[in-house]
């Protein structure tokens, strides 16, 4: 008891003195000591090929993981109207506040950008992977591979990335499709582009002119009433 109380005091004292290494190292070190296994534990069993095939449905931008299959824009259109349009709209324009899939080209610098599959998504594989694993919403993993190819083709068509309704998407031509916004993504550069946020000696006194209120949440007034939360039994 007294031992742990002392440890806490040390942690607090270290913090107040500005030495942050001690508490951080303490938490990490405790993990390392316990975590080191002596060789293999011999736990778990081999996964069968059938089990891996059942779960390993993910698809990467280089086409790895694409199943054999095919579907045309026209087939995708029919499927989309049946299974997707109630949320996404007949042309991917969105229904109510459900996601918009098409349009938005040229809006990414605008005040209210429309980030759709066509205007924003850098990789077509993302479309296939996501439809296959999560769509239709509420009935996931109910589509065949051919259906996913067809729906992906229709989404390309809605975004004018393919123009011909007889176009067939399959595992062979999939990676030849380039998305319009693919070149606009770059790796996290905060440590250089935001280097000026590292500032160990910030101003403490008379740091700026007297501030004025320039915006108020109350003038927008969209905050839910704090008393109207769900009932607690």
């Amino acid at each position, binding site marked *: 008891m007294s031992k742990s109380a002392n440890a806490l005091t040390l942690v607090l004292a270290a913090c107040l003195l500005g030495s942050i290494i001690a508490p951080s190292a303490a938490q990490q070190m405790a993990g390392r000591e316990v975590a080191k296994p002596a060789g293999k534990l011999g736990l778990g069993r081999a996964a069968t090929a059938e089990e891996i095939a059942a779960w390993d449905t993910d698809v990467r931008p280089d086409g790895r993981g694409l199943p054999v299959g095919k579907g045309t824009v026209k087939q995708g259109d029919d499927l989309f109207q049946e299974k997707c349009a109630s949320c996404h709209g007949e042309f991917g324009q969105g229904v*109510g506040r459900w996601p918009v899939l098409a349009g938005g080209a040229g809006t990414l610098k605008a005040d209210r950008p429309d980030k759709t599959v066509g205007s924003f998504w850098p990789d077509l594989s993302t479309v296939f992977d996501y439809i296959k694993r999560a769509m239709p919403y509420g009935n996931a993993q109910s589509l065949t591979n051919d259906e996913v190819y067809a729906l992906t083709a229709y989404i390309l068509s809605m975004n004018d990335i393919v123009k011909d309704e007889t176009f067939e998407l399959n595992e062979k031509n999939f990676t030849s499709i380039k998305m319009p916004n693919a070149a606009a993504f770059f790796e996290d550069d905060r440590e250089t582009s935001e280097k000026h946020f590292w500032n160990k000696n910030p101003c403490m006194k008379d740091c700026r002119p007297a501030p004025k209120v320039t915006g108020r949440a109350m003038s927008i007034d969209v905050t839910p009433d704090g008393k109207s939360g769900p009932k607690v039994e």
Partner: protein
Amino acid sequence: MTDRTSAETLNRRRFLGAAGLAGAGAALSAIPTLAGETAKSEALITDVQDWQRYLGDGVDKHPYGVPSKFEKNVIRRDVPWLTVSAESSVNFTPLHDLDGIITPSGLCFERHHGGVAEINPADHRLMINGLVDKPLVFTMDDIKRMPRVNKVYFLECAANSGMEWRGSQLNGCQFTHGMIHNVMYTGVPLKVLLDEAGLKPNAKWLMLEGADSAGMNRSLPIEKALNDVMIAFAMNGEALRPEQGYPLRAVIPGWEGNLWVKWLRRIEAGDQPWQTREETSKYTDLLADGNSRKHTFVMDAKSVVTNPSPQAPLKHKGRNVLSGLAWSGRGTVKRVDVSMDGGRNWQTARIDGPVFDKSVVRFYVDFDWNGQELMIQSRAIDSTGYMQPSKDDLRKVRGVNSIYHNNGIQTWLVRSGGETENVEIG
């Protein structure tokens, strides 16, 4: 049996008695207690109260336990207009009602993409496949036989404060900052599981996948996976709550919450990232020039004053306690400064309680308030020397279309009556 009957009789009498006394109690309840005044007697003290006279509940009334009924407003809340479906939505931790550094399990904010998966732990399987020597399947029993660790970490959604990029919008730190919680996780280092399968030398990325109806999947660099990532089955000493991924979730310390895949069922090793929906169409940061940052995993240093705040206004002149939370995904919080005048002058707050790596800290400033208007701000400085920027400085670099990673300094305006509002200042 006799005991039960008599207790019920007493309860009935207690109910009748309470109804009769309610009026008298209310009339005497407002007693001024300012120093120097002669205090008047309170009936709450001079009269014997029901809770002292009659028997209370027996031991098994709440076999798990629930908060006091007088704390019924301390709950997660959602913003109904924010999402179209409750199954793919988010609610918010009531930060203004909490203290210390541990978030109670039942108040940790929820974010699901296809509802809460209900999984019997006996039926749960975790598969490791891809670039490994031997693809493996683990049961929960297997995982619970592995060496275990306990760590306190914050989990912050990258979209926390995302509604505030264009200006003040929501009144309450529950809504502006409540997509964060901080708990103690119990689980197994991911490295232990990967060692069992044997990573191939060209394995550079992992894909984590959930067993929910969204099949949530994210790519994770192998260096992070081998460093401090955990596979957790417990939080705050109990099994994970269903809404937090029961029976198994990923814990990715200091990195955006979307990576912390819940209901974790599969880990695939590969040589490049997967570019899943959640890492291309979402969780990328669109800048003003139309280009986007990707793989912005780390949560920068951030803080918020939780009290006073719009849902917790100042109620008394004289002595008050200002309190708040600070955190950094890059390490520990080294210091928190607080300003009462909108950033003109700052004082260093007192941090109390444990200071852990990639965990929140609790800070306090004890102060006297005479009813003057306050513009309250806090700024965190972390162990790398990163200082939480002002909202305007952040907007200069990121624009206002960024959605994610808004860690700008928050301003609360406290008016002379104590009412507190979320404001922007210039």
